[in-house]
C-alpha cells in the first residue's frame, strides 16, 4: 500500500491502465472518469481559502440580523395567515432599503429565512430545527397557532434561540417552564374578556351555548370564555367539543335548536367555523348572536351575507390607528394583504415592532443577550403596549368586533369602538 492508503493504490492501478505512470502527490480525485491529483503545494492555499470563506461567513453573520420564521402558506391555517411571508419580507425589504435595522445608532441588514410549515406540527418543528442549526438565526418568529408553536418552540428551547411567538396563546405552551420563549399576545383564557365585559354591561343576553373545535387554542379560549360568561351572569346551556375535521354538525345543531341560546359561541379556526356556520344557516338555527372567535376575511368571503351580524375577535382595525398604523398599512399594501381579510396581520406587525424596539436597545448580537433584552422590553405597538410575564406570556388582547355591512367594526370598549354593537344582530334574532 502507498503512503496514500487505498486511494493511492487504486490511483496507481488506474494510471497503469490508461497511460504511463505519473508521479502521485496528494489525494487523487475521480473527475468525469479521469483521475486528477492535487499537488501538495495546493493544500495550504485550499485551507486558506476555506478559512477566508468561513471567516467571511462569520463576519457576515456578525453584521446582519438573521431572523427565521415559518408561515402556513398551505394547509388549513393558510386561511388565516397564508400570505404573511410576504408581509415579513416587505418589512425586511423596507428596512434594508434604508440600510437595515437600527441598533446602537447604526444600521445592520436584516436577513429573513422563511419556510412553509404546511400547517403541520412535524413540519414546523423541522423548519425551526433548520433555522437554529443550518441558517444560524439570531431570532425566531413563531408560526401561526398554538399546536404549531408548541412543536416549534421545542427546537428553539433545545438550541437556545430567542423565540417570539405571535398567534399562540394556549397556556399549555407556557406551562412547560421554557426560558427561550416570549409571546406577543395574552393567554387564551383571557382572549375574549372584553366581549364578556360588553355583554355584562349591556345586560341583554341571558344564556350561551358553546361549540368548540378540539384543538389547543379554541379549547383554551373556550375554557376562559365559559368562566367569563358565568361571571357575566349568563347561563351556560351546553358545551359541545367537536374534532377539527368534523364535517357534519347536524347532531349539534339539532341540540342547539332545542336549547335556543341567546349567544352561540363558536371557538374554532376558520375552516371549522365556515362549515359550522353554513350548516347552521341551512338548518335555520337562530340564536340572537353568533360569536365566532375567528371570523376573519375568508370566513366573510365564504359565507357572504350569511356572515352579517356575526361577532368575533380582532386585534386591530383601520379606524383604531395607533403607533405605526400608516407604516403597517403601507407594508400590507406592499405585501398585497387586506387587513380585513387577515385579522391576525396586526399581531405580526406588533411582533416586528417589538423586534425593532429590542434591537434599538443595542444588545450584543448573540442569542442570550437578545433573549434577555426581549424579556425585559416594553414596546408601544399598533395594538397597545407589549410586555412579557416571567413565563413568556405577552400583554396584547383582542377586541370584540362585528361584521356590519360587510366590514369589521370594533364594538367595545366605548373609547375604541368604531360602531355600536347591534344586538340581536338580525331580524331572525327577534323571534321571541
Amino acid at each position: 500500500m502507498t503512503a496514500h492508503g487505498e486511494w493511492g493504490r487504486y490511483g496507481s492501478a488506474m494510471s497503469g491502465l490508461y497511460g504511463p505512470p505519473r508521479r502521485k502527490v496528494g489525494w487523487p480525485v475521480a473527475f468525469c472518469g479521469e483521475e486528477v491529483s492535487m499537488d501538495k503545494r495546493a493544500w495550504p492555499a485550499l485551507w486558506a481559502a476555506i478559512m477566508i470563506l468561513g471567516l467571511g461567513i462569520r463576519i457576515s453573520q456578525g453584521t446582519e440580523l438573521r431572523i427565521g420564521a415559518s408561515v402556513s402558506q398551505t394547509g388549513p391555517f393558510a386561511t388565516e395567515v397564508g400570505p404573511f411571508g410576504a408581509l415579513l419580507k416587505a418589512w425586511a425589504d423596507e428596512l434594508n432599503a434604508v440600510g437595515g435595522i437600527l441598533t446602537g445608532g447604526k444600521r445592520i441588514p436584516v436577513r429573513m429565512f422563511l419556510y412553509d410549515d404546511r400547517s403541520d406540527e412535524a413540519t414546523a418543528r423541522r423548519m425551526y430545527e433548520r433555522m437554529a442549526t443550518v441558517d444560524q438565526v439570531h431570532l425566531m418568529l413563531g408560526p401561526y397557532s398554538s399546536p404549531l408553536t408548541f412543536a416549534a418552540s421545542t427546537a428553539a428551547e433545545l438550541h437556545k434561540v430567542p423565540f417570539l411567538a405571535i398567534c399562540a396563546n394556549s397556556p399549555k405552551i407556557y406551562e412547560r417552564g421554557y426560558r427561550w420563549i416570549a409571546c406577543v399576545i395574552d393567554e387564551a383564557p383571557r382572549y375574549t374578556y372584553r366581549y364578556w365585559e360588553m355583554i355584562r354591561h349591556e345586560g341583554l343576553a341571558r344564556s350561551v351555548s358553546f361549540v368548540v373545535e378540539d384543538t389547543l387554542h379554541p379549547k383554551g379560549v373556550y375554557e376562559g370564555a365559559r368562566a367569563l360568561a358565568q361571571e357575566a351572569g349568563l347561563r351556560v346551556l351546553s358545551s359541545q367539543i367537536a374534532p377539527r375535521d368534523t364535517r357534519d354538525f347536524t347532531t349539534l345543531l339539532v341540540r342547539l335548536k332545542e336549547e335556543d341560546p341567546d349567544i352561540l359561541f363558536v371557538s374554532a379556526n376558520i375552516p371549522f367555523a365556515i362549515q359550522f356556520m353554513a350548516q347552521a344557516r341551512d338548518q335555520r338555527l337562530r340564536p340572537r348572536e353568533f360569536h365566532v372567535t375567528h371570523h376573519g376575511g375568508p370566513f366573510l368571503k365564504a359565507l357572504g351575507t350569511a356572515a352579517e351580524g356575526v361577532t368575533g375577535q380582532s386585534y386591530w382595525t383601520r379606524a383604531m390607528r395607533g403607533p405605526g398604523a400608516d407604516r403597517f398599512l403601507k407594508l400590507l399594501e406592499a405585501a398585497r394583504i387586506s387587513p380585513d381579510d387577515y385579522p391576525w396581520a396586526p399581531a405580526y406587525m406588533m411582533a416586528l415592532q417589538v423586534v425593532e424596539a429590542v434591537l434599538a436597545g443595542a444588545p450584543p448580537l448573540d442569542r442570550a443577550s437578545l433573549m434577555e433584552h426581549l424579556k425585559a422590553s416594553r414596546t408601544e405597538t399598533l395594538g397597545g403596549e407589549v410586555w412579557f410575564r416571567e413565563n413568556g406570556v405577552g400583554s396584547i388582547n383582542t377586541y370584540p368586533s362585528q361584521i356590519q355591512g360587510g366590514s369589521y367594526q370594533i364594538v367595545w370598549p366605548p373609547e375604541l369602538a368604531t360602531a355600536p354593537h347591534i344586538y340581536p344582530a338580525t331580524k331572525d334574532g327577534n323571534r321571541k
Partner: protein
Amino acid sequence: MTLLHPQIALQGLATGAIYAVAAMGMQFILGSTGRVHLGVGQALVMTALFLGWTLERTGIPLGWVMLGLSVSGALAARIMHPPALWRHVLREQGDRAFLLITIGAGMAMEALAQWLWPLPGMASVAAGAPLSLSAVFIAWPKGLAIVVSASAALSLYALLHRTRRGKALRAWDMGSAQLETVGVDTHRLARWATSVGLGVAAMGGVLLGMTQVVSAQEWIAWSLKSLCVALIGGGLNPLSALAMGWAMGVGEAWVSQYLGPQWHPALAPVLLPLVLRLRSRGAI
C-alpha cells in the same frame, strides 16, 4: 330526542351519498382488477377544489361543470395510467406495486394541489335557500347529492350488465389469464375500468365540493373511507356500494348523535373487520 332525528338522518344520507359515489369509483377498479387504487381520494379532493375555483371564476351552470369535471377526471386517469403500467402491475404480486404506485402518485398530486389551492375549497356556500319539509331543512346541493348518487349507481349497474366491456369486467374473477384466452385484452380493460372509476370519483368530488369545506390533505382519508365502504359493500356491484354508502352516512350520524362527533370516523374501520369476519365477500 328520537332514536334518529329526521334532520340528522337526512344529513347522514347526504354525506353517505358522497361515500357511495367515491366507493363506486373504488369498487369499479377493485372489484374488477383486484387492485386497490389509493388515488381515488385524490380524484375526489382535487375535483372538489377545482369546482370551487371554477364556480368562483366562471358562470358555467353546475350541471355542465359536473359533467365536464367527471369526463376530465376520466381522461386524466387514462393519461396517467399508461399501458406499460398495467403490463407491470397485472403480473403476479403486482397488486402491492400498484398500491405503492397509487399512494406515491397521490402524494405527488397532494403537493400539486397544495400549490394550486393553498386555501381549503369552499364551493359549498354557493348553495341557495334550503328546502323545508315540516321542521326539517335540506340545502339543495345535499338533496342533489342524494339524487346523483342514486343515478350514478343505476348508470354503472347498466354499464356492467348491458355492455361487453362491463360483462368482461364482471368476469374478471375467473382470472386474467382465462379472460385473455377468450380474447379479452386485460390491459386495455383495466385501463378503461380505472378511467371510469376515477371519472366516477371525480363526480363524487363535485358533490363533495358543493357540500363541504375541503383541503388538499384530506385525500388519504377519503381514499380509506371509500375503500372501507367498497369492501363492506363487496364485489363489483354499484347498488351495494350505494346502499353501504348511504348506510355508512346515516350510521355515522347515529354514532355522532349518541356517542359524540369525535367517534363517527371510527365506524367504518370498526365495521370492516366485523363484516368481513361474518361474510368474506362483503355485506351484500
